[in-house]
């Protein structure tokens, strides 16, 4: 308190000191305490993936991330929907792989910080998430057997795989390992039945070997995605200056006012909490679905059941930490009707890079998002389930612009170019 008063006196007596630099006086001690909660933190570890920090695994994972060979039409890779040039999203309302999906492609910035993955949280680790798009009929539309054969038959991929994970199973034996196949998915249609039959024809120990191979590839992809970390945003620089009591020009005045609103009367911090601006949990915002009408996507209500039944979850046989924290989160997870229509709070770092916004990309700009929360116009109630703490904010035009300016300040440094494209070889050059 005394220090703030002293700075005010200095500003009053020094004509050269601009008011915009007088930051320690502009934020109360409570505001500074709340701001400190949002400062960037290192990515948490993922004990369920013992390769999560393995550079060779991350290199292989990067190679796979940008590779379209594993899709049924040879045109879809992870980067199709998670394009580094578009904030690791795709600029579309809903994703388009081999087919058209029903939800927006999420950004991968700081993905490793999540507890739950997908809008409905139906996966509980970065690697368990990576498995699903590879086989989903509307995304890459691949199958674990076809992917296993593709890796096995490419000498560089096989070498890269075996140096990290050990010998591959005997995939040359076509009787034991059909060319394509996987278990049935709820999204399948009749055309995928040959895949189910091929999988069902296998011996269980051969299925287990292919599953393990499939999981290893996903763990490599997760090791790469873990590197997509935001650093050095103007907000973080400002927060550091504030903490040190140093005058700061890192945030414009309008962004500073937006920050005050974010942690203050706009209450964004209730859900967009902490270092990644997400509580990692699920809420019903009542955003109207594309095409209008009532809410029809069950969201977390389905996701909670799916993650508990996922064979690739943290308590399961492919996890490297079946008794750890992630496992406990799944084992104690509640499934209740309250969860119907809830979607995961997205993180906000680099949010300005990836319009449109919300679970179906309903809003084309950050301004549209802020206006929605300001008026709640068009918000659907999920019966009695909409979040009770949502009230219209009734922001002024200036306040809308201030919040948008603050959100834009969460965009940090560009990643090095060599992390954003397929490497020349899946084998790192320093081997």
């Amino acid at each position, binding site marked *: 308190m005394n220090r703030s008063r002293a700075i005010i006196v200095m500003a009053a007596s020094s004509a050269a000191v601009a008011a915009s630099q007088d930051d320690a006086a502009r934020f109360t001690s409570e505001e500074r305490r709340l701001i400190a909660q949002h400062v960037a933190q290192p990515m948490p570890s993922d004990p369920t993936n013992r390769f999560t920090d393995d550079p060779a695994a991350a290199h292989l994972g990067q190679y796979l991330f940008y590779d379209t060979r594993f899709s049924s039409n040879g045109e879809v890779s992870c980067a199709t929907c998670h394009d580094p040039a578009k904030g690791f999203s795709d600029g579309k309302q809903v994703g388009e792989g081999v087919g058209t999906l029903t939800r927006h492609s999420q950004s991968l910035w700081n993905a490793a910080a999540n507890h739950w993955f997908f809008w409905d949280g139906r996966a509980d680790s970065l690697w368990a998430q990576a498995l699903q798009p590879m086989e989903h009929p509307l995304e890459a539309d691949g199958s674990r057997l076809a992917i296993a054969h593709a890796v096995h038959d490419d000498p560089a991929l096989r070498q890269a795989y075996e140096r990290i994970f050990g010998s591959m199973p005997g995939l040359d034996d076509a009787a034991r390992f059909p060319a394509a196949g996987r278990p049935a998915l709820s999204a399948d249609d009749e055309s995928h039945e040959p895949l189910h039959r091929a999988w069902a024809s296998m011996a269980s120990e051969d299925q287990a070997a292919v599953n393990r191979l499939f999981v290893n590839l996903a763990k490599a992809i997760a090791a790469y995605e873990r590197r997509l970390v935001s650093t050095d945003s103007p907000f973080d620089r400002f927060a550091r200056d504030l903490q040190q009591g140093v005058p700061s020009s890192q945030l414009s005045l309008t962004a500073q006012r937006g920050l005050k609103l974010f942690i203050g009367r706009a209450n964004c911090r209730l859900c967009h909490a902490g270092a990644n601006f997400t509580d990692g949990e699920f809420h019903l915002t009542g955003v109207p679905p594309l095409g209008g009408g009532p809410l029809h996507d069950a969201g977390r209500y389905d996701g909670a059941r799916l993650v508990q039944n996922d064979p690739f979850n943290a308590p399961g046989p492919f996890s490297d930490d079946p008794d750890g*924290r992630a496992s406990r989160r799944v084992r104690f997870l509640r499934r209740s009707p309250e969860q119907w229509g809830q979607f995961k709070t997205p993180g906000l770092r680099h949010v300005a890079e990836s319009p449109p916004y919300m679970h179906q990309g309903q809003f084309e700009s950050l301004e549209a998002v802020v206006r929605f929360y300001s008026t709640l116009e068009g918000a659907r109630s999920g019966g009695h389930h909409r979040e*009770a703490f949502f009230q219209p904010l009734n922001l002024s035009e200036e306040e809308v612009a201030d919040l948008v300016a603050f959100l834009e300040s969460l965009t940090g440094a560009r990643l090095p170019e060599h992390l954003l494209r397929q490497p020349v070889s899946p084998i790192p050059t320093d081997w």
Partner: protein
Amino acid sequence: MTRAVRLIGVLGLLAVGACRPDTAAPRSQSAEDPTPTPAPIEGESIETFDGTFEITYRTDPAPIPLSELFDIDVEVRTATDGVPVSDDAELAVDGRMPHHRHGMNTTPRITRNGSGRFRVEGMAFHMSGRWELSFDVTRDGITERALVVVMLE
């Protein structure tokens, strides 16, 4: 973090001559009873609203973290004589944010852990703000509640 804690009126108990057994002394163990008595809980003590039960609890970790699983050790005793309740008493524990009209995203599991002792596993308070942590003791078909306000900031 502040908590609303209702303490037992110890002086009041002494005034009515209540006798509290020394719970720090382990009960004697026979060859037929290999289960060790758990050590008494050092934690917060609160009373149910109608004054029938005294509840002592300690969270693990303490203080309660934001958005991470935590457990609670609980001891329930009859308030008049301080005797731990026996197995005919049930305990239920819940956490809610009344201003948000929602509860937790986890379903905790409660197991007995000795006379009047319970272990609650798998609690999680996933948002900052005002939570109400409730302990419901049911005996002879009657439920009494004790409530603690927990501010996560």
